């Protein structure tokens, strides 16, 4: 796994095994007030085992890119392949788990039953369902809330339940759209390090949308900076931080240097807007 990463970090030659590969990907929404170029000419390769953060101002197409990977939106032009398959084939082989920007829990199901939903659909036996539910609920610190209904939980707890639901069936690719946006700093720190642990232990590939520069730098092996109108990738930063990341790595000069580069990338995106 470490070799995987160093190969990706060197940024030379084709990655060993591309999980997501986008070439000249564009997506335009036709709306009543004319076309919206949500993605324009995006080129990006994500290798197996990478942790990629997407950061950029609101409306720059982060959600749209994740949804296109998930086959929830169709690209207007360009190609996109997931594990060497089309997004549709990938979806049908249940290649990814998706954490939406909103929890999207079904109100008629208890938290436990919500986490069980993908397992029921994918036909896991009852005993294994129970065991997976217990494990993921533990992971997101929701043990004891199994029998509650979503509306009886706080917004942050609901979001954690939706993370548990995406983790329950162990997809190799995780698409997470601002999963920790609604959480307080402390829980966020905790879940960040839990997520890193999970990632290190499972060699999953993670695409992670966030608005927080420290979060992006702390978690990622690769940070994709995007800018709006039209949505495009302005910078791809390979992290030089070691794989082992205690929370206080955030005070090191190396960390701050990467954060500064992300910030510059975001600023550049904004000033582009003023020119137009």
């Amino acid at each position, binding site marked *: 796994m470490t070799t995987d990463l160093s190969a990706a970090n060197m940024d030379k030659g084709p990655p060993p095994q591309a999980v997501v590969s986008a070439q000249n990907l564009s997506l335009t929404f036709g709306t009543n007030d004319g076309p919206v170029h949500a993605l324009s000419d995006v080129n990006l390769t994500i290798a197996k085992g990478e942790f990629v953060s997407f950061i950029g101002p609101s409306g720059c197409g982060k959600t749209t890119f994740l949804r296109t990977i998930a086959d929830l939106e169709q690209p207007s032009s360009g190609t996109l392949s997931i594990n060497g398959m089309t997004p549709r084939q990938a*979806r049908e082989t249940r290649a990814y788990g998706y954490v939406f920007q909103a929890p999207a829990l079904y109100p008629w199901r208890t938290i436990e039953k919500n986490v069980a*939903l993908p397992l029921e*659909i994918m036909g896991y036996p009852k005993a294994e369902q129970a065991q997976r539910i217990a494990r993921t609920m533990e992971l997101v610190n929701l043990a004891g809330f199994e029998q509650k209904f979503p509306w009886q939980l706080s917004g942050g707890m609901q979001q954690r339940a939706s993370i548990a639901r995406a983790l329950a069936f162990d997809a190799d690719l995780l698409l997470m759209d601002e999963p920790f946006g609604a959480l307080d700093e402390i829980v966020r720190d905790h879940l960040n390090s839990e997520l890193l642990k999970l990632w290190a232990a499972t060699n999953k590939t993670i695409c992670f949308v966030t608005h927080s520069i420290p979060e992006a730098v702390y978690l990622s092996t690769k940070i994709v900076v995007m800018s709006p109108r039209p949505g495009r990738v302005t910078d791809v930063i390979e992290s030089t931080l070691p794989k082992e990341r205690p929370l206080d790595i955030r005070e090191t000069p190396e960390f701050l240097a990467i954060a500064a580069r992300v910030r510059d990338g975001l600023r550049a995106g904004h000033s582009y807007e003023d020119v137009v």
Partner: protein
Amino acid sequence: MSQLQYYLALVAGGLCAAGLALSFATPLETALVLKAFLALGFLSLLRFTLPLGLWADGAVAALGAVAVLAGLAALDPAPPFFWMALIATWLFAWLFVERLAAAIRAGRATGFGMLIPLVFGVSILLFWEVVTRGTHVPQVILPPPSQVWTRLIASLPTLWADFQQTFLKAVLAGYIMGCAAGFAVAILVDRSPFLKAGLLPTGNFVSALPIIGIAPIMVMWFGFDWQSKAAVVVAMTFFPMLVNTVSGLNAASSIERDLMRTYAANYWQTLFKLRLPAAAPFIFNALKINSTLALIGAIVAEFFGTPIVGMGFRISTEVGRLNIDLVWAEIAMAAVAGSAFYGVIALVERSVTFWHPSVRGRA
């Protein structure tokens, strides 16, 4: 004490005082209970110096009801103080309900919530009884409730036969078939955008028609017995169920559907695990609307030809024979059956759609 309670107490007590004064014109022994009530009501004015519990008002109102009913027989024609006693009784009942409602709101009398509609209903019956008998309203115009009740008890076998014919056969059979058909067609239509585009406007159009007009035609098609009434009920309940279920099936939000897509769930999994649960509030809405429509449909359809049994048949023939008390007995039975039908569906709805924001808050 709120301003409303203050004036209610004042006027009720004042009326009792005036009534008591007027009642001295009659011999002492006539309508003794009524006089006792007036005296007590007068004494209740003491509440402005001594606090009086809300149950005291309830007791005075109950005594008033008994006194007025008893006085009805003794005093004929009814003198002015009798009507004053009736109004005072009514005011005491109102005052009692006001105070009880306030106490319940303040959490001091929980568990008595059912008493309020009960007092309300009894007050209306009392008023109806006393006015019809006290002013000798002809029984063809409006019989007193006591007469309707006696008639109801006396004609139980007839009523039971009518209930079986109209409710247990026509209404239930038609309701179940109409709702089931509307539901099934909605599921089929939902899969075809073409049918959805064509059938929904038609459905909305037909829902707005007075379908009851087809009753004579149904009699020609299906004969005089309950089958033709059930057919009318089917026609009346089908479209509300169809239209509601189709919109219910679209009630799931796009993010909830996207979730199912990411799991590559098939059509039936999405239907049973997402779309039908999300549609439940709409489906129950149709079931409730239809419970009322079905009863109306079956009763009115019987006006257009029927064997010599059935609630609608009885109403139309007994009106002709000026047996208005039996007509009212049928209406009372229809009201009870209809409310019970609706109530059962509403109870099931609560347990099924407990998660819906409109049900969630309530215990």
